[in-house]
């Protein structure tokens, strides 16, 4: 944006001289011409007001004693009219006429000069008042620009709110409409599986398993979308001191079979000494699970996944390093954006997620005052680093409820029939 006050610069100030005596007016013009002003003249109060109807001088020199309207009346009119009341007025009064000066100031004039006018004094007073006027002008222009900006901002906010409401309404309807048939799908699947409708043969059991997994995936998808849109019910984070090594081995236990099935080596190198992180136990495990299952998904056969933990300057760092496909440098930050999946072609359909896992994991890590970052070389592998604040020992960190984050993995509370 250009400086709104710049239009005021570099224009010669315009001064209106109002005096019924031509000689006086000429004298004032002579005195002021060397200052580089544009000079206008009016020979009566009426003339002056007529001229002010379509001209905007920066200052007015106003004689008091004039036939017709006198200077006080003219000054009063000028100061009452919204289009002219900002123009400074200097009254020209007779020498030592205190009464005239008071009348002029009371009429709203900014200053006065006594006749005969002293050139140096005239120039200084004019210059000072012009400077004050220019400050006022700049302030008014800035104020107007600010008012415009504020209006635009509030309009933009209103539009954003409308769009956001539309989004919420849409997601609300989507959630409801998808859950309704899903209830029947997963419910009847379970009934069939229980053998209530007759004996189920092994091939049918397999098929039912596929239906269950697909509906569980669909439910997770719905819940993830709502989580990202922050429309899910909030479960506050329960921050406690957590021993890191046991979490690592638990994740190892949960993932080792899946890794083996994919022909991958999963190695968890626990930290040599016991370290504790301040975190929500469930969230901590959820993030690690997400990182390891991701690594399994994106690492080709015969590759390896190594999970390590250490502590460094107040933080616990857990690294999940794989020999997978990696991501291009420009995708390193993109993988944390919702709905972004960089390498879809490498995953089979059943493994495919929606690209919300990393986005949710990073948000959770940050909500626990930690972070989740990625270093990756395309074709070589990726290393995700989860940092969490260190807890010096078990007693040091009493449980804390952090309600700031409006997130939860909603599947847990109302676990679907298939989960």
């Amino acid at each position: 944006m250009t400086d709104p006050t710049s239009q005021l610069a570099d224009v010669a100030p315009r001064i209106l001289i109002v005096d019924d005596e031509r000689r006086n007016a000429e004298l004032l013009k002579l005195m002021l011409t060397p200052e580089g002003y544009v000079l206008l003249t009016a020979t009566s109060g009426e003339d002056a007001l007529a001229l002010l109807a379509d001209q905007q001088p920066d200052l007015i020199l106003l004689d008091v004693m004039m036939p017709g309207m006198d200077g006080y009346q003219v000054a009063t009119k000028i100061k009452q009219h919204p289009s002219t009341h900002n123009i400074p007025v200097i009254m020209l009064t007779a020498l030592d006429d205190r009464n005239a000066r008071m009348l002029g100031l009371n009429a709203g004039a900014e200053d006065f000069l006594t006749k005969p006018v002293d050139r140096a004094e005239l120039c200084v007073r004019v210059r000072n008042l012009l400077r004050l006027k220019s400050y006022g002008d700049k302030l008014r222009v800035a104020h107007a620009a600010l008012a415009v900006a504020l209006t635009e901002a509030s309009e933009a906010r209103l539009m954003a709110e409308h769009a956001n409401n539309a989004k919420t309404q849409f997601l609300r309807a989507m959630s409801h409409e998808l859950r309704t048939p899903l209830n029947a799908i997963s419910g009847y699947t379970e009934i069939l599986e229980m053998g209530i409708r007759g004996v189920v043969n092994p091939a049918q059991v397999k098929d039912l398993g596929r239906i269950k997994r697909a509906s569980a995936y669909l439910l997770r998808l719905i819940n993830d979308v709502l989580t990202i849109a922050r429309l899910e019910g909030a479960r506050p984070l329960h921050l406690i001191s957590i021993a890191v090594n046991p979490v690592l081995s638990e994740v190892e236990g949960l993932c080792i079979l899946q890794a083996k099935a994919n022909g991958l080596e999963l190695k968890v190198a626990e930290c040599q000494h016991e370290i504790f992180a301040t975190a929500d136990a469930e969230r901590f495990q959820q993030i690690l699970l997400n990182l390891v299952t991701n690594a399994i998904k994106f690492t080709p056969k015969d590759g390896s996944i190594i999970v390590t933990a250490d502590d460094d300057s107040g933080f616990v760092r857990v690294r999940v390093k794989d020999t997978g496909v990696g991501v291009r440098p420009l995708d390193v930050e993109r993988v944390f954006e919702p709905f972004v999946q960089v390498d879809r072609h490498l995953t089979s359909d059943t493994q495919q997620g929606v690209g919300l896992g990393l986005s949710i994991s990073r948000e959770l890590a940050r909500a626990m005052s930690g972070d989740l970052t990625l270093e990756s070389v395309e074709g070589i592998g990726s290393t995700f680093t989860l940092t969490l604040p260190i807890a010096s020992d078990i007693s040091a960190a009493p449980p804390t409820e952090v309600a700031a984050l409006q997130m939860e993995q909603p599947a847990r509370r109302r676990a679907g029939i298939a989960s």
Partner: protein
Amino acid sequence: MARVLIIEDNAANMTLATFLLQSAGHSVLTASDAETGLTLTRAEQPDMVLMDIQLPGMDGLEATALLKSDAATRSIPVVALTALAMKGDEERIRAAGCDGYIAKPLAYRDFLATIATHLVKATT
């Protein structure tokens, strides 16, 4: 065992809930809209009402409020069975007077356990 009235407009989900309740030994009454459900509740005095919330015409929240404001039906537990499972939904539904809340898709064990809990509460 108990008599349970299911108010639900989706036929597949109605059949599912009916089946699950019957398999647990309960007897089931059904209504596919709120008005019919209200009439049945007053006439039959079931031990529990399972209430879908989004219904054609009068919704489940309004129907629950009516049941809870009527001395003849006030003591019958009303459990919401609904696909409204977003932030604030449960609070809103409980505020309308529902004694319990089950989100769809339902897990049948949790479902039957919740039903049992409210039946016990109602008789003690």
